[in-house]
């Protein structure tokens, strides 16, 4: 299913506009409202982006992307930081995707009688509670669990796994909502064709739920890249190029925080890094969307 082509064409709906004057004005009001909403949202985004651009533009250059930070980050670039960030994100996704998909599938597909229902309730409650934990508490939790108890120390491993804990509730909720909203007709049809549940899932249900999965994935990646407090306590402050995943590495969001709030004169670097982070987000989400489309969405088309 292609997301943008799934809905009814606008012209079909338009041709059935109401004829009475009250229905027409109601239609106009709603149309005006949604346009205002969209303009407001885009406007806020442009305002924010414009402000970032205005303050950080001077910093952008190729060397900014490749050099290591110097003079506490006020000179040089963010090359080593980008590497750390990507590694942390990679670890987080490596943990989130299988765990998240598995749990979402379990919650949506397996009703399983009394014990199953109880288990589902327990897990749903767990997820909601996890979603409500403030990020700084997650940082302390990650520090206690991964850095100290599992003895990973300040490392990219610790940071990525802590991020995974934070991404899971979001990803699982959206994926499960997507799977649940796939109508039972699909499941019944697959069963009628003799497909095992696993096959139905892989070939029919997950592709059908692809828009929700993609939305969840993009939100999760966004959340991961934006996370600061949790990473300060787990992947750390070191701005050197990490030599392995067991090394401490500074994430981009932590760098932005340090430059804007801690280091005197780091404002420009902070804004420039924020712009780079936004570009990174665009690139990564595009890759995520195209991958999801390739593996999931293009396998089936709606009737």
């Amino acid at each position, binding site marked *: 299913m292609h997301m943008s082509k*799934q*809905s*009814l064409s*606008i012209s079909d709906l*338009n041709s*059935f506009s*109401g004829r009475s004057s009250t229905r027409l004005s*109601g*239609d106009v009001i*709603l*149309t005006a*409202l*949604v346009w205002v*909403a969209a303009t407001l*949202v885009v406007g*806020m985004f442009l305002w*924010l982006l414009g*402000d*970032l651009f205005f303050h950080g533009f001077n910093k952008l250059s190729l060397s900014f992307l490749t050099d290591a930070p110097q003079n506490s980050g006020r000179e040089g670039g963010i090359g080593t930081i980008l590497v750390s960030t990507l590694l942390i994100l990679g670890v987080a996704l490596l943990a989130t995707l299988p765990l998240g*998909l*598995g*749990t979402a599938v379990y919650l949506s597909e*397996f009703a399983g009688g009394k014990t199953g229902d109880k*288990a589902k309730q327990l*897990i749903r*409650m*767990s997820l*909601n*509670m*996890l*979603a*409500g934990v*403030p990020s700084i*508490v*997650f940082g*302390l939790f990650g520090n206690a669990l991964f850095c100290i108890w599992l003895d990973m120390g300040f490392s990219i491993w610790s940071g990525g796994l802590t991020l995974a804990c934070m991404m899971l*509730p979001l990803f699982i*909720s*959206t994926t499960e*909502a997507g799977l*649940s*909203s*796939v109508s039972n007709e699909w499941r019944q049809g697959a069963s009628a064709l*003799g497909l095992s549940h*696993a*096959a139905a899932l892989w070939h029919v249900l997950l592709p059908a739920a692809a*828009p*929700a999965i993609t939305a969840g994935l993009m*939100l999760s990646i966004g*959340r991961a890249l*934006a*996370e600061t*407090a949790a990473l300060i306590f787990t992947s750390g402050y070191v701005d050197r190029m990490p030599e392995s995943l067991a090394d401490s590495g500074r994430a981009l969001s932590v760098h932005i925080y340090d430059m*804007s709030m801690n280091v005197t004169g780091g404002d420009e670097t*902070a804004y420039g890094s924020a712009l780079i982070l*936004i570009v990174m*987000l*665009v690139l990564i*989400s595009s890759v995520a969307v195209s991958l999801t489309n390739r593996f999931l969405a293009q396998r089936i088309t*709606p009737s």
Partner: protein
Amino acid sequence: MIWSRHNTSFLSRADSALTQVTGSTALVVAVLLGLVLLLLIKESGSVLSDGGWTSFFVSDGWYPQSDEYNLLPMLWATLAASLGAVLIALPLGVMSAVFSRFYAPAWMVNPLRRIMVLLAGIPSVVYGLWGLTVLVPLLGAWMPPGSSLLSAILILALMILPTVSLTSEAALSAVSPASLQGAAALGLSRKGVVLGVALPEARAGILTGALLATMRALGETMAVLMVAGNVVQTPGSLFDSVRVLTANIALEMPYATGDHRAALFASGLLLMMIVTLLAWLAGRQQGGDGRGHAHE
């Protein structure tokens, strides 16, 4: 490769493997929560034991130096800020999702979604920075001090907007074409289709999004810390400076020891409980498992 059943009486190997695998991943998630809870309880233990938790609601105020930890003003501030943010972000987000699904010209849909994803990915410290340097002075010129409940609400609304919008859009996408075509066949106007058919059917997904957004708002730390003013007082008006529970933890944790530290963890526990309560309420509201239904 399609694994088809050889025998409908017995679970095929693929299916039994599936049950086990997904079940175990779900178990990991539950265990994870257990560990987080364990940490919170362990760390807040010293101040919760012996009924000490009542002091959270009856003490004179939040004065860690004299061992007084009244959480109520900050609790009200947290609730007020998050509620206010959701009240703004929910209609805006749903309407922009409706716009994207039903009103936008085809070329606008993808860019709009991209913008939403971008807004979701901006770190809270950047929101906070922008809020502190742009929003707060603006509000301050209107009504000092500028850092207030209102600025917290506005910044939070901006931050949770993408969540609401993207999940609502996904929910609207899942509305079956049959419903939409049926509505059109019945002669409904576009407004009728949207308000009468699409939104009701997508209600479960939209509520999920709203819930996720509320939880995000409740847990947001950095941005609110920079724009809300951080004075511990029960908000009397929108322009009062307030401190939310999360900002309190962030401000004081690096310097807290002993009972003070335990009190901070206890406030984290309180936050978790609020979120759980909210989620439970939302679950009861939805009822069933919200599965899409076939139309006759």
